């Protein structure tokens, strides 16, 4: 593996990182997902050398760099707030890392022009950072780091300060960098970025990693209520699980019973159902699903992933369907409809 973070802990006043461990393989696009204040930036800073951990080790390409000086680590870090050098031109910012490199001046100029071209800022070389837009700045600081050809690229919330269009432009850029072989460790609070860019995801909460795996593993099998909530699963309810005669039911607070298949016999916890797993019909159909309920449509909301249909079926359920389906079934607020989902689509997380 290229980067191995082993049991890193760091105490900073009221916040602490606890026993953080994960590894990044060459070619990974690794996403560290967590809310603001969860410790993601601290993790990046210890890897880059801006902070030294209280305990634990960091190995990069087999070398222990835990206490290595920042300038010797050769790890590219792109800060959230850019940290562009205001008194230098774009070209000088880009070439900053090339000082002392054993290449000729013309070669340096070539590299600067090449990277500026790749990033779409070739026209801005003589300008100063003060006159650049947010998106241009972001690309400049990315270029400034990439010009050193770092083994691993650390990104701290690179898309957060951008508007939607720029965000998708930059996302495309990052994807192509990855496709061209760049290993990336990307830190964010946005689970959409994790889904669309990551090859591996680790969720960090209150200073510890609570789940890691491929994006599918994390999003389809969230290991805790926090992860479920964070990754946007909308159907989750406190529930009590009971099993009798090999049949399990989860009872929500108002005694609504959901049939579930699980190897946990009983207990208090949460029930999760993904919106994509809920089927709708406008007539009571016989299906193989064991959970079939009649309900009333409360609201229909369009979003980036489809249409969220909110139904009161005794509990409030969110079904994610295509806009066509809404049309086909003639769904609208107030209409009666039926919800169907399999017992195997229901997950129980024990408290």
């Amino acid at each position, binding site marked *: 593996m290229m980067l191995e973070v082993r049991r890193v802990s760091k105490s900073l006043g009221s916040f602490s990182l606890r026993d953080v461990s994960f590894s990044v393989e060459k070619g990974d696009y690794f996403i560290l997902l967590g809310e603001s204040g969860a410790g993601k930036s601290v993790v990046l800073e210890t890897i880059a050398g801006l902070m030294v951990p209280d305990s634990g080790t960091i190995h990069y390409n087999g070398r222990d760099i835990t206490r290595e*000086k920042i*300038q010797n680590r050769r790890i590219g*870090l792109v*800060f959230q*707030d850019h940290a562009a050098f205001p*008194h230098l031109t774009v070209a000088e910012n880009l070439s900053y*890392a090339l*000082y002392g490199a054993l290449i000729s001046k013309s070669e340096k100029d070539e590299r600067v022009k090449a990277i500026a071209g790749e990033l779409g800022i070739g026209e801005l070389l003589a300008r100063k950072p003060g006159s650049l837009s947010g998106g241009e700045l972001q690309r400049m600081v990315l270029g*400034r780091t990439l010009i*050193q050809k770092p083994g691993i690229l650390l990104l701290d919330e690179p898309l957060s300060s951008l508007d939607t269009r720029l965000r998708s432009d930059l996302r495309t850029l990052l994807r192509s960098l990855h496709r061209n072989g760049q290993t990336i460790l990307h830190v964010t609070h946005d689970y959409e970025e994790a889904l669309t860019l990551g090859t591996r995801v680790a969720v960090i909460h209150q200073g510890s990693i609570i789940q890691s795996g491929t994006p599918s593993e994390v999003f389809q099998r969230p290991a805790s209520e926090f992860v479920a909530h964070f990754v946007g699963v909308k159907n989750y309810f406190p529930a009590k699980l009971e099993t009798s005669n090999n049949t399990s039911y989860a009872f929500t607070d108002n005694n609504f019973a959901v049939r579930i298949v699980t190897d946990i016999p009983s207990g208090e916890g949460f029930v999760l159902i993904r919106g994509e797993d809920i089927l709708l019909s406008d007539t009571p159909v016989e299906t193989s699903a064991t959970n079939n309920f009649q309900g009333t449509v409360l609201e229909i909301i369009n979003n980036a992933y489809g249409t969220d249909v909110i139904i009161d079926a005794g509990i409030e359920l969110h079904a994610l369907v295509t806009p066509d389906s809404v049309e086909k079934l003639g769904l609208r607020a107030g209409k009666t409809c039926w919800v169907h989902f399999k017992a195997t689509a229901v997950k129980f997380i024990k408290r």
Partner: protein
Amino acid sequence: MFLNTTPLQVFETAREAEVRDSIWLTIYTSLAGTLVFSVAAIPLAYILARKQFPMKKIVTGIIDLPVVIPHSAAGIALLGFVSRESALGKAGSVVGLDFVGHPAGIAIAMAFVSIPFLINAARDGFSGVPVRLEKAALTLGASPFRVFFTISLPLAWRNILSGLILMFARGMSEFGAVIVVAYHPMITPVLIYERFGSFGLKYARPVAVLFILISLALFVVLRWVAKEKSSEVAR
């Protein structure tokens, strides 16, 4: 004072070799003192801006000392460092240099009382440079040395230049500390005093007026140059 002195008197005074030599001496000793001591003062200001260490408050207090103590007392304190019996004085005599009564001693005295202005201005300048930028430079492989010269210094330059001008100005106007260390050769503040004491107001006044005019011109030019330079850097 200006009204009582005619331009002719000022002109005549300017022609006196003693006066011209004195003014020139004042200018170059203060300049030399400023430049020589800035080499140590500026890095010191950087350390004060960035590092925390146990005795920091005491060190900051000591740095401000020359501004608050009486100038003649400062001069006496300096004599302890530069007189022929002191370590520095002995080192000086090896190269035939005696600080007491020598322009070098004058420069040291001027620098001593005015260095706090440079240190404080430089420290403010460095404090205003975001640490983030220095760290970013480090992640790009620059040594701390290179970071200082390519990032910290340029971004703090406006304040540092201001501090240098202030130190130069303050040095040029010093009297008390200088007369203790080196009454001769006479810098202009001393010359004015001596003429006043020996010959009276009428003889001293033209020198004072001339010196004030020259100082004024010098600093207006410096401020103007500083403004040009620093607005370039800031942009």
